[in-house]
């Protein structure tokens, strides 16, 4: 029984994090990541 539960855990985690990922995409977070990653943040890399 315990082995069966342990076998299910990764798939429950996958479903949970897939759900979070889709919520994030739906909320427009992809464009926020793109915007952040395409700007050079000088203070972030220790300059300025």
């Amino acid at each position, binding site marked *: 029984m315990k082995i069966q539960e*342990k*076998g299910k*855990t*990764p*798939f429950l*985690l*996958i479903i*949970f*994090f*897939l*759900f*979070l*990922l*889709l*919520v*994030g*995409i739906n*909320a*427009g*977070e*992809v*464009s*926020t*990541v*793109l915007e*952040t*990653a*395409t700007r*050079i*943040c*000088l*203070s*972030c*890399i*220790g*300059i*300025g």
Partner: protein
Amino acid sequence: MLRRWIQVIATFLSNSYLLFPFTGNIYQGTLKSFCTPGLNCYSCPAATGACPIGALQNFMATLRPGLQAGYQHFGLYVIGTLGLLGSLAGRMPCGWLCPFGFLQELIYKIPSRKFAIPRVLSYVKYLVLVLFVFLLPFFITDEYGYGITWFCKFICPAGTLEAGIPMLLLKPELQSLIGILFYNKLFIMGFFLVWMVLSSRPFCRTACPLGAIYSLFNKHSVFRMTHDPGKCAHCKTCHQNCPMGVKFYESHNDTDCIRCLKCMNESCKFGAISYQIAGSKESSDQGFKGKAVARGQ
């Protein structure tokens, strides 16, 4: 050998924007919408993806003003991405895909006296994750409610090496802006570079917040290591060869295991180490033991 090639390819793919010497700028294409599986600074002139830790800090740092402005951006896209990778393979991206992990392995090959890392230091990375990636960017804010990316700004040696120094070379006019912040980061980078010669993967083991996130999934991921106590001779060869100092025979899905499979393919002669994918066990008999038999050893 396969892992080494995958590390080379992953490092190249994460840093394949080779036009930066001509454009004088970082890559700004749509690939940067995607998070890289490893620690790779997105301000690196050659970077083609977004560093998940940098992106996560940015979400935390802008969460308050974002909520006030009606945006509900909690960083779920990044958390979802990392959670999915972790659920599938645990800390495997550290061992196979992370450019900074690869660099540490190469530097460790420099001949010198080698030192073990005390186990207690492996808990520091969780402190770094909680404090520098989540709490400080969220709670310490300016008058407008914006926080700063504490880990990137004060700690990340990958950022200094991949972005800080290259940007100074690419844009010499920035050299006038160098101050104590940069010298602090240079010191941290230098400290870790020296430590990388003396100890195996010191940054991964003690300070990497990305490794800390993946490590939480090691015991519950689809890909898991398995140990057969009946075949194990407790020779400790796996421990001696492990780049993360894991005692496999005591904890075969240890939070520090990066699933590099060095223990299975290059250490265990007894077939005691194998892995399973979704509960389906793969035998290690074709690994080191099989090769040794084939060689007549």
